[in-house]
């Protein structure tokens, strides 16, 4: 088993078929890499979405406690 091409440029041209071979491999490589890193991106997006939701929930809870405080002051004053 040995390297089939005399030099690099021959390896790149592959007797005229180089463009097809290299484009195929490159395309496949890109697709596979995309598939591999997609979960990472999605995960990052999930993280920021979760943080946003947590912030929203906090805001909501504050709003609810404020409302109960105004509507039922004696209840709100009670120590928890």
């Amino acid at each position, binding site marked *: 088993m040995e390297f089939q091409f005399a030099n690099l440029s021959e390896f790149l041209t592959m007797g005229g078929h180089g463009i*097809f*071979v290299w484009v195929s491999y490159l395309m*496949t490589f890109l697709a596979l890499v995309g598939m591999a890193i997609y979960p990472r991106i999605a995960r990052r997006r999930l993280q920021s979405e979760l*943080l946003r939701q947590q912030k929203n929930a906090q805001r909501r809870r504050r709003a609810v406690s404020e409302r109960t405080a105004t509507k039922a002051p004696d209840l709100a004053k009670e120590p928890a």
Partner: protein
Amino acid sequence: MNWQWFHRLGSPRWFYQKTGAWLPWLALASVVLLSVGSVWGLGFVYEHGQQGNSYRIIYIHVPAALLALAGYYVMAISGAIGLIWRMKLSFAVMRAAASIGAVLSFICLVTGSLWGKPTWGTYWEWEARMTSMLILLFLYIGVIALSHAASREQSADKASALLALVGTVNIPIIYWSVNWWNSLHQRATLRVIEESRIDPVMFYPLLIMIIGFYCMYAWTLLTHTRTLLLKREMRTKWAQDELLGGR
């Protein structure tokens, strides 16, 4: 018989924590096998008699074709399991399999048509295997589109699982009818993708690439499924810990 393991298997949390350990090994295996196979195939294999160097495309074309087909069954079977046993986990597997399968059939189509130009002088030919691969891609896209269309996750899951199942019934019919269609039209000018004697020397790197693609498939299937699970379980404590703990 103890069915405990089966139900535990259905638990997203158990699955998530169990599979975490396998990922690095699968990733390593696929990277090593794919690089060895590609280098071998690109540089160290004899030139093919008639097709010259374009023959080297086989090392990605054929594994992609095999997995695109096998992937459909992975998708349909996990969909069926989800429908029958109402397992959230297997729906997640189904969705992951759908997008990965679509990418693989796309790779098969593109490498195939890039191979077609030097060998037959045209990028596209309405030939039986190519046509049925194109329809397979449409089936995949249909499942994906349907799973994105419904407003609720649960109905989207079940609907796309059902579509995948219906598609399974249809795949043999499609494959067979397309073959039949092509033979009817007597395409004598081309004999495409005929069975050919593959030289063992050319076959070893192909074998390595096929195994590499299988590893890659398993790895991406796992990672995609795991992210989907995190997304769906975002309201549970373990998922939140998992998401925010890793930062």
